[in-house]
């Protein structure tokens, strides 16, 4: 063991490894403790991050939007073309004027009352399950998931909407609860099919939640004076609440991981202390043959650090494996590790190695400070 090239470069590591091999079962168990601690910390972190990301994915579309409705000082309870143009002049992002009215729809499977939504390019807010919505959409309707189920209809078929026969272009996926269009119960038509030029609300779709908050502020400043012509709503408070909940969750998970790592480092402390006591004579001999106190300290610390290092490496490998499963479950992509998930894995590794190094300090110090004479006296 001492005559390999590597051992010649790092004789202390080689010796430390040799010493750990002497009590193999004990070393493996201590290492397993660190591994479990690192797994707890890293995989709980990955879980939290994936969970948060899965929510954020659906939340972000909503939070990136600014909802504009006629304010209390507006001359009319509806917007017209002029209002839309005013808003378009004031923002850089796409503007979606939306008109809604009640109606009824019937198909082969049955009949239901529904809300008809007239808007351009609904794909900015909903996802299509079957069929497709053309870029220049003029004829045909897009049917929400629940409506499609009730009417038992598919793209290419025909439904009757408010007495008129319409061809179904696409059927939508079930939308998340946070989607403010709530498209499941609705039927979408293109604005060109609508006879009305009045809009209940206008949505400005910004790139990110932050951009949306800024847009909302700018709109409020430019369009409203002392009187509120436009009621401008963003989702800043909602997203703040969401962020707060998520950080509470992360802290909680981190706490559980931290406690298990603490337990693991106590077991390293125990192992190193036992090893120190067991090897009292040997350490005494080493002191006698010229090992400085610092040398003994270095040796014992190397042992603790090796336990921690390998424990942490195994922990990280297993955590990444678990992370693949977690990501596949929550984000439907095993490799969708978020920055947070990687940070937690790195933290787990760091804490694992540092914790065992710290646990090694006291036994190493104790071993190094045993006087050579006393170590040999039996």
């Amino acid at each position, binding site marked *: *063991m*001492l*005559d390999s090239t590597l051992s*010649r470069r790092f*004789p*202390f590591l080689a*010796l430390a490894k*040799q*010493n750990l*091999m*002497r009590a193999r079962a004990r070393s493996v168990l201590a290492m397993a403790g660190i591994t479990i601690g690192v797994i707890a910390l890293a995989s709980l972190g990955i879980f939290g991050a994936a969970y948060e990301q899965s929510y954020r994915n659906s939340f972000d579309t909503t939070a990136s939007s600014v909802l504009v409705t006629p304010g209390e000082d507006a001359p009319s309870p509806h917007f017209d073309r002029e209002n839309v143009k005013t808003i378009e002049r004031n923002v850089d992002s796409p503007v979606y004027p939306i008109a809604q009215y009640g109606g009824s729809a019937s198909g082969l499977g049955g009949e239901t009352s529904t809300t008809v939504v007239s808007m351009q390019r609904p794909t900015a807010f909903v996802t299509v399950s079957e069929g497709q919505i053309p870029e220049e959409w003029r004829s045909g309707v897009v049917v929400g998931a629940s409506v499609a189920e009730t009417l038992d209809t598919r793209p290419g078929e025909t439904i009757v909407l408010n007495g008129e026969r319409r061809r179904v272009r696409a059927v939508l996926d079930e939308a998340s609860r946070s989607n403010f269009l709530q498209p499941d119960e609705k039927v979408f038509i293109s604005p060109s099919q609508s006879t009305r030029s009045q809009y209940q609300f206008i949505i400005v779709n910004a790139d990110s939640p932050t951009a949306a908050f800024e847009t909302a502020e700018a709109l409020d400043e430019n369009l409203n004076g002392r009187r509120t012509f436009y009621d401008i709503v963003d989702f800043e408070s909602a997203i703040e609440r969401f962020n707060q909940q998520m950080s509470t969750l992360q802290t909680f998970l981190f706490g559980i991981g931290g406690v298990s790592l603490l337990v693991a480092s106590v077991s390293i402390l125990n192992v190193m202390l036992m090893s120190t006591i067991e090897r009292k*004579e*040997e350490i*005494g*001999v*080493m*002191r*006698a*043959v*010229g*090992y*400085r*106190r610092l*040398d003994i300290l270095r040796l014992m610390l190397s042992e603790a650090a090796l336990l921690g290092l390998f424990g942490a490496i195994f922990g990280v490998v297993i955590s990444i494996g678990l992370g693949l499963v977690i990501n596949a479950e929550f984000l439907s992509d095993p490799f969708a590790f978020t920055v947070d998930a990687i940070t937690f894995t790195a933290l787990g590794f760091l804490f694992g190695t540092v914790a065992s190094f710290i646990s090694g300090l006291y036994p190493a110090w104790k071993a190094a400070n045993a*006087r*050579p*004479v006393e170590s*040999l*006296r039996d």
Partner: protein
Amino acid sequence: MSIISATNATKVYQSGDKELRALDGVDVSVDPGEFAAVVGPSGSGKSTLLNLLGLLDEPSDGSVTVDGVALSSLSKRERTDLRRETVGFIFQSFYLVPTLTARENVAIPGLVRSDRERLIERADDLLTRVGLGDRLDHYPNELSGGQKQRVAVARSMINDPDILLADEPTGNLDQNTGAQVLDVFDEFTDEGVAILTVTHDEQVTDFADRTIRLVDGMIQDA
């Protein structure tokens, strides 16, 4: 000139309000190539003297001098370094590391030196010289008591010491294997290495150039 000398060395241990004088004004000096045996009843201060000469402990009074340098003038670290360069130790119960081979056990003290290049070759040389050239890769549990002690002697020589200090080196060995260890000692004293051994074994005292008799912490003239 002597390698190590103790002048008026006194060691007092405090236990409670009682004072135990383990050594009481001992003068000893060891010359190169000399084989000296320290004998005396148990509790006479033999081990204490060995610890003082091995730079493992400091005298309460008097001085220990190595190559003209007084021990009291050195820091702990300097003393450790001086010990590594000057003194080799041999113990009654060998103290080999069970998971290391004979070669590795011999090499261990050299690991902390900066000139590690030829460490393994030196270990092999020394093992060959103590007659274990064919046991280089054997583990301690594959060696007999006498062989283990010879590995320990080779280990004590790895840093080229000027003096070997042995504490009952033949205490766990029978007559025959003890003689083999003494033969090895003889070979090293011929090269100028001094050996000071504490012993109860008459075989060793017969072999020694000089016998120092300790009684109650004082040297008793023969």
